[in-house]
Structures are given as structure tokens and as C-alpha cells.
């Protein structure tokens, strides 16, 4: 068979690919590669890119995920400093900080429910139980925000767990611990429900009586306000009346110059007003000027 350039090129490419598979390995970003020489760690590559290796089985490559991993801790009943029982569970985030140590301790296992996570979980539980046991119930929940130390407790658990992890050869660093569940023992929830029921009944009667009291208050306030308004109006009316009388007094000074005429004028005008409408007059012929109707009698005789 003739060796054409294309055949040679294909063969070259195949040889290159095969050679690369044998002598190179690839590390992705956020990965660490452990290179072992007949089981002994000889190199750790943490920066992404290509690395040189001897072919398997001389050198073996194990890749570890260096990203932050997380798991849910188990809930534990903890006796607090004030003898109150509380169930607490946490959520843990950790990261492989020392790939060599991690590999030597746990192999390649950083998967959920691995031995690594179980051991880390036990360690975090110890920290959680110890730290929480130093605190009172009111440090977890309280109407007084100054008294509440929830985030401090989380930080204390984290610091304690980090200190414990440093003392081991786990090869990990705990990045965060968050409390994800707080609960009461089952028997206590029954008491809480009893208390809540009693509180609700108190609230109901208080709401009703408060409503009635408030409504009565509003109504009496309204009555008071109305009464004040009317009495103010009456006072103002009396002032106006007084002002009118004062103005009238000025005119009276003029009328006093001839009281007889003034009285006559007022009487005659009052009579005129009084008899202006809807009046029935009963008159006899002696009434002036009707006496002039009596022709038989002398004209100068009144009545």
C-alpha cells in the first residue's frame, strides 16, 4: 500500500491523541488533581490546564472538586443553659482546602453522604451542641432584639467547628454554618398550644371590650364636641344680641328727647303690624270713625 500524505497525517494525529491521553491530564477550573506514583502522592495540580504524567498504571490521577460543598446536619435535642430543651439542625458549607490531606484521609470521596461528610457532620454536631448549650433560649428567639444573639450563635458554632477541623487532617475548611431548623420537643408543643389557646381567648375578650370602650369613648367625645359647639354658638348669639342692644341704646338717647312721641309712634306702628293680616275686627258703631255712620245721632258725640 502506498503511504499517501493524508494517511501519514491521520496516523500522526492518532498517535498525538493517543500520546496525549497517555502522557497528559487535564485539570478544570475549580478542580484539584492528585498525581500518585504507585499509590504515593507525588504532585498536586490545582491551577486549571494541562499537566504531564507517566502512563497508567505508573501514575494515577484523582480529581477533587474544590468548590464549596454543602450538607444538612442532623437535628439534635440540646439542653440549653437555662435548662430549656431545643431541637436544632444546621446547614454546613465546606471546601477542600488541602487536597493532599483530603485525598490521604478520604480518597476521592467528597460526594454527599460520604465518610468525609459524615465525619465532618459529627464534628459540627459537637460544636453545635457545645455552643448552643452555653446559651439561653432567649438568645435564639426574643421580642427584644438587643437580647437576641442568633447570628452570634451561628458565628460561635462556625468558629468552634473551624477550630476543631484545624486540629484534624481532614483537609477541608468549613466556610459557613447556618441554623436551618429550630423546634421544640413534642411534649412541649402541646403546652405551647394550650397556652396559645388561652392567649387567643384572652385576646378575643380584650378585643371585644376594647372595641366597646373605644366606641363609647368616641360617642361621648362626639356628644361633648356637639354640646361645646352649641354652647359656644349660644354664647356668640348672646354677644351679638348685646351688641345689637348697645347699638339700640344710641338711638334711644334721641328718642328720650320726646318720650311721649316716641312711645306713641311705636305703639301705633305695633298696632299696624299686629293687625296687618288674618285679623278679624269686631266693631260697634261707637268706634271712631264709625260713629259717623250713625246719622240719627249728633256728629260731635263720640261713642
Amino acid at each position, binding site marked *: 500500500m502506498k503511504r499517501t500524505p493524508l494517511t501519514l497525517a491521520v496516523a500522526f494525529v492518532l498517535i498525538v491523541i493517543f500520546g496525549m491521553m497517555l502522557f497528559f491530564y487535564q485539570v478544570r477550573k475549580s478542580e484539584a488533581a492528585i498525581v500518585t506514583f504507585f499509590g504515593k502522592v507525588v504532585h498536586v495540580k490545582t491551577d486549571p490546564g494541562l499537566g504531564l504524567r507517566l502512563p497508567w498504571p505508573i501514575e494515577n490521577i484523582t480529581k477533587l472538586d474544590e468548590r464549596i460543598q454543602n450538607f444538612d446536619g442532623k437535628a439534635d435535642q440540646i439542653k440549653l443553659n437555662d435548662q430549656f430543651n431545643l431541637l436544632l439542625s444546621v446547614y454546613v458549607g465546606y471546601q477542600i482546602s488541602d487536597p493532599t490531606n483530603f485525598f490521604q484521609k478520604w480518597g476521592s470521596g467528597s460526594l454527599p453522604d460520604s465518610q468525609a461528610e459524615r465525619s465532618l457532620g459529627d464534628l459540627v454536631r459537637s460544636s453545635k451542641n457545645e455552643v448552643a448549650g452555653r446559651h439561653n433560649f432567649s438568645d435564639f428567639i426574643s421580642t427584644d432584639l438587643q437580647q437576641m444573639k442568633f447570628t452570634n450563635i451561628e458565628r460561635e458554632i462556625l468558629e468552634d467547628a473551624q477550630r476543631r477541623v484545624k486540629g484534624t487532617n481532614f483537609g477541608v475548611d468549613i466556610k459557613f454554618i447556618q441554623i436551618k431548623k429550630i*423546634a421544640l420537643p413534642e411534649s412541649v408543643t402541646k403546652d405551647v398550644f394550650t397556652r396559645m389557646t388561652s392567649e387567643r381567648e384572652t385576646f378575643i375578650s380584650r378585643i371585644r371590650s376594647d372595641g366597646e370602650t373605644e366606641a363609647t369613648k*368616641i360617642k361621648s367625645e362626639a356628644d361633648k364636641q356637639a354640646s361645646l359647639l352649641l354652647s359656644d354658638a349660644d354664647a356668640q348669639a348672646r354677644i351679638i344680641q348685646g351688641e345689637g342692644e348697645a347699638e339700640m341704646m344710641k338711638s334711644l338717647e334721641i328718642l328720650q328727647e320726646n318720650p311721649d312721641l316716641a312711645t306713641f309712634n311705636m305703639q*301705633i306702628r305695633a298696632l299696624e303690624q299686629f293687625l296687618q293680616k288674618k285679623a278679624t275686627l269686631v266693631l260697634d258703631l261707637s268706634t271712631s270713625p264709625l260713629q259717623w255712620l250713625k246719622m240719627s245721632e249728633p256728629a260731635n258725640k263720640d261713642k
Partner: protein
Amino acid sequence: MNPQDPNLPPPGGAPPAEDAASQALAEALRSSFFIVKIIMVGLVLVFLGSGFFTVRPQERAIKLRLGKPVGQGSQALLNPGPHWAWPAPIDEVIKIPTTSLTNADSTVGWYLTAEERAKGAAEPPPAPQLNPATASYALSADTNIVHVKATAKYHITDPIAFHFDFVDAPAFITNALNNALIVAAGEFSVDAILSSNRSAFRERVQQRVIELTDGEKLGVSVDQVDVDCSAPLYLKAKFNEVNQAGIERDNLLNLAQSYKTTNVLHAIGEATNRVNLAESARKRMVTMIEAETNAFLRLRGQYERNPELFKRIRQMAVLENVYTNVEAKIMVPPNSRELRFQLNREPQAPTSTAPTQP
């Protein structure tokens, strides 16, 4: 005969047949190699063509070349549009949704698990006590039990951090929601959570979630947190009674306010009326006395000249006016000994003058 002549048959007869077979085999091999070449060229083209990919508008992509991101920081992000990468294992393309909102649901605090909620499961029967292993709830600041759940809507702002710093970033957000619900519930009373300060509770949950995601540099922006709260199922009826009492109280107060408004407005009207009446009485009185004074001044001269005559003339003028305008006039005949009137209690229909009986 030339033994080298290729046109001559080989001695013995067999060689010419072998030659033909070799030629046919060579021909067949040539054809096969040609097909193989075509296939190889085709495979190379497919290999190179498989590197084309598209980034959609709601996502970004990161290209890893031999495991290393191509570009630094935000320059490593590929924008929407067509792109090309070397096929695996040289390049690896990671696509990450960015602008579209993603939901994360809390997994603690509610009487149904997230899976049961997703399936639309019915409420569990009310229980007089809660087993912490199976029941989930939060504790309020006044040590009461309350059910809470939350849903966060977020979008990825830093795809590199979101993808390369966390194995399971969505799980982190879910647990941040769980933690935020527990923390916020521990700061509010049960009544504040369920009714009076619900919006502040929701804001506190959202604030805590943002604190946690920003604190761990998760590379997301939490846009909205919706919170739902419920009284314990066992006490729901009691809580409803409280709400009902509150509604009744509000009705009572509304009625009282209505009474107040009506009464005060009526009093304001009445007060204005009284003042106006006084004002008009004052004006009437002053006007009347002024008119009286004017008449007095005008007539005084005439009166003082002959008071008796003046009075008689004024009297006659008034009588004329009165006699003219009165509604009825009854003349008593001369020498009448008695005069009888029939007076009705009820006013009579307006007809004519009252009948008289001499």
C-alpha cells in the same frame, strides 16, 4: 516471442488469471481507500463543525480550554450569539442562565414538605402536638408556633462565581431562605407575623436572604421574596375567632365614628343657625330702631306744634290702613244685647268671613 512482453500470457496458463485477480483486488482496495478517505474528510469536517454553538439571549457561556477559562473575569463570559469552540476534550462550553428569574422554595417551616406542596397535597389533619421529626414550623419571638414558607425569585449576576465556586448554589439559596425564615420568625411576635406586621416580616426575610447570598458571594441577585404564613392547623379556628373579633371591633368603631361625624356635623349646623339667627335678630332690631329714630326726628316738629291733632291724624291714618287690610270685619248692630261666636278647634277651610249670630 519476447518473454518480457506483458501482452503475452504467462507460461502454463495460470499466471494471466492471477494478474487479473491482483488487478481487481488492487482496484477494489483503491476504491475502498477512496471511500475511507471521503469518510475521514467527512469526519474531520463533522469534528470541526461540532464546535459551533449558540448562546441564547437569556444565558451566558464560559469556554474552558483544556480546563482553563478563556479570558479573565467578565471577559470570560460569551455574550448571546453564534460561537465556535474546539470540540471536546480540547474545549468545554458551560452555558449558564442569567437574566431569567429562577425560583427557590423554602423547605422548612410549613406543614407540608416542598414535594407535597408541588404535588398539591391536602392539609394534614390538625394535631394537638407536633413531632419535630415529621412536622415543620417556626418559633415566633413570643415563643409561639407558626407555619411559614417563602419563595425567592433570583437571577444570576456572576455566572463564574455561581458555577465555579459552589457545587450546588441553588441549594444554598434554599437554605438561606430556611435560615431567613427562622431568624425573622424569632424576631416577630406571632400576631405581627400573621397580621399586624406581615410586610415587615417579609422584608426581614428578604433582607436576611440577601445578607447571606451577598456574604458568600454567590453571584446572584435576589429580586423578590414572597412569604406565606399560617397559624398552626390545630389553632386555626381560634385564630379565626380573633380575626372575627377584630372585624366586629372595627365595625363597632366605624359605627361610633359615623355617629360622631353625624352628631358633630349636626351640631355645627345648629350652632351656625343659632349664630345666624342672633345676627339677623340684631340687624332687625337695629334697623327697626333706626327707622323709628328717623321717623321720630322727621315727625317731631309736626308733633310739637299740636300733639293732640298729630295723634288724631296718625291714629286715623293707621285705622284706615288696618280697616282696609284686616281679613274680616264684623259690625255690631246698634242696641245689640249679645254677640255669639262659634269657634272651631280645627281651622276652617278658607271660605269667607266667620258666620255671626246676632
